[in-house]
């Protein structure tokens, strides 16, 4: 434990370990490859599934912003994902605005909800923080369940249109085109997360995570920073949820149920927390697994996803991406050392 703390102090930011800091070109290579994968995804994967991966990736990144960078485990993020899904759906259905505007509206609604939630939740840490967020999420779930005139209750909000001005027909004709219409929203969200993490604000977050007392002693208003990052995180989850609901053409209680909050934490931990890249990796794994297993004829999907989770948590503490990155870093270091020896 103490060793871990020391290493965190050494490293400025967890997302920028010495590896990429020393070799900046690696970051650009990583970004280029990432962008390539994102753009090429619907050619190799069924487009609606690719869209799900992208939405879940941003959702996981939003959780990582709290969990990995600020040390707050939110167990109620489905509330923001779902609130935005419903709000986006209602705007698109009743106002008929283009879907990016509706998604933005959904994200704003999620942020508005996050204000009081965050205000109350950040007063506690650890398990109490998780419980407060879970309690709020359950409240939202029951409101959506009961408010049937607006949300459709158990049946969900069905038939959300995909509007996009003159391109409406094109994106409705094939999910393939919709992917390219919606992916900029997801990329915008990822860019935002990247900016947050690589800003002075992001550095303060990491300081708060590692030593809140010291951060406070340095004059930072810890609670206010936590509320800010909570609201920002909710906004990102909202962007993802909005895209998800437009992509599927509906919003249902599934978006708000507590297992969705659990699933996104699972996705984040699988990929690796505190890495930003971890979320997309975890999302791709979980969504693809669910999709493949659903058609496999195998009747125990939970057993497989559960077993993978247990293995990853026990054997690869830093998640898939974290383990891969650390492994690469160690390899490069050892290579340099041998070179220097010679």
């Amino acid at each position, binding site marked *: 434990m103490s060793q871990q703390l020391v290493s965190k102090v050494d490293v400025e930011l967890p997302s920028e370990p010495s590896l990429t800091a020393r070799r900046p070109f690696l970051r650009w290579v990583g*970004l280029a490859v990432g962008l390539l994968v994102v753009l090429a995804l619907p050619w190799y994967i069924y487009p609606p599934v690719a869209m799900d991966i992208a939405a879940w990736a941003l959702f996981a990144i939003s959780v990582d912003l709290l969990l990995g960078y600020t040390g707050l485990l939110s167990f109620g993020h489905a509330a923001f994902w779902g609130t935005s899904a419903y709000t986006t759906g209602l705007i698109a259905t009743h106002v008929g605005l283009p879907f990016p505007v509706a998604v933005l509206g959904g994200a704003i609604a999620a942020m508005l909800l996050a204000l009081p939630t965050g205000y109350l939740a950040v007063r506690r840490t650890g398990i109490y923080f998780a419980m407060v967020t879970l309690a709020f999420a359950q409240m939202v779930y029951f409101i959506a369940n009961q408010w049937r005139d607006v949300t459709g209750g158990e049946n969900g909000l069905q*038939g959300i249109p995909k509007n996009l001005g003159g391109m409406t027909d094109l994106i409705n004709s094939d999910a393939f085109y919709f992917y390219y219409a919606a992916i900029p929203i997801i990329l915008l969200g990822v860019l935002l997360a990247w900016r947050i993490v690589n800003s002075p604000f992001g550095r303060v977050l990491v300081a708060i995570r590692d030593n809140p007392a010291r951060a406070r002693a340095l004059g930072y208003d810890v609670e206010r920073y936590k509320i800010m990052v909570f609201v920002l995180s909710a906004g990102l989850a909202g962007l993802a949820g909005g895209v998800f609901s437009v992509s599927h053409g509906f919003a249902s209680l599934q978006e708000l149920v507590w297992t969705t909050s659990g699933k996104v934490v699972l996705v984040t931990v699988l990929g690796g927390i505190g890495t930003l890249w971890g979320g997309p990796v975890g999302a791709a794994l979980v969504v693809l697994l669910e999709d493949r297993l659903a058609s496999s*004829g195998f009747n125990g999907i939970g057993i497989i996803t559960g077993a993978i989770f247990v293995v990853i948590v026990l054997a690869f503490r830093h998640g898939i991406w974290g383990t891969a990155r650390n492994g690469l870093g160690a390899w490069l270091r050892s290579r340099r050392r041998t070179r220097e020896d010679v």
Partner: protein
Amino acid sequence: MQRKKTLALMATAVSGSLVLAACGGGGGPASSGGKISDGKVVLGLLNDQSGVYKDLSGPNSKVAIEMAVADYKAKYGDKAVAKDIEVVQADHQNKPDIANTKAQEMYDRDKADIILDVPTSSAALAVATQAKAKKKLFIDIGAGTTALTGAQCNKYTFHWAYDTYMLASGNGAATVESGGKNWSIVYPDYAFGQDMTKSYSAAVERAGGKVQQKIATPFPNDNYATFITKAAASKPDVIGIMAAGGDLVNFIKQFNQSGVASTTKLAVGLMFITDVHSLGVDQFKGTTFTDAWYWNFDAQNRAWADKFMAKTKVRPSFAHAGNYSAAMNYLEAVQAAGTDKSDDVVKQLEGKKINDMFLRNGEVRAADHNVVHDVYQVKVKSKDQVKEEWDLEQVVKTIPANEAYAPASPDCKM
């Protein structure tokens, strides 16, 4: 700094050109000029293969559909319009988003001409949305919501076996007529429970009965003790329980332990023979409910159930029989139309009067695509009445189709 910029530019250029190259390679969806699209008819089964609804439909529904395919081929032989028939299946895990993606995938990738079953109302409505968008058929068997043939109805969606209105009108009215005038209804406080309570109250009052209490419970719920005491306080003749699945099992166990069971009859909103089988008949003591079909009702049902049991080792629920009937009638419609083009098949199905092993006095209503048929008020047999393992129900009354189902909803605009 300069180097960074160059690299970023390069990265964008490379990814951009790759996308462009890929665009050139992609072809549009292949169109087929033949009478049968893609040379074969594909039936897609989308239901719960791993969760709470696995037993009442699940993997055994595939067996039922394959039986329909075999019977169709045997019936028409060389004259069959659909020579090559494939059955594909997927597990929607009762989640509407997975149902939605899988339905798209079945229509687009597997070239499914029809999707069958789909329990869980929200999942069924999600698939109906896809059926409308893709202009392909969808026959729902497993879900109960009346919205499928109401506000959410569309040209390509049919609702085959049952709905919440029919469940209530069957057992509700018949119980009042046999003396159960005063009711307490206990229901889980979500859409299905609320719908069922509304339908049941209306059915009871139409028949001259009275609903004294409507008691909402949380959903899901484990402890029903207080709700049972409250429901019994007004000394009703009948307690109606609108919970389903695991909640229903909990309620029935606690109801039997409470002592109320000796003075009050129990009416269950929705129950499948698989529920009765897994709990055991002695838990029910003459409980009544509405069943869409019972395997041991007559020789025709039994003959089919025997064939089913030879393959699956269990007796069929009404959902299994419904899947067979829907698949068979779809194939018959393809045969009559001479093509699997959706619009022509829909035309064949609309208004069709059907009598088969599942539907009695059945009719595919053209106005809302609700498939109405005779349904049954049944009573769970007592232990000494049970002659063989799955012979658990006794048909009390046959409810004719026009009484069992609501008239076509004005909300439905095709």
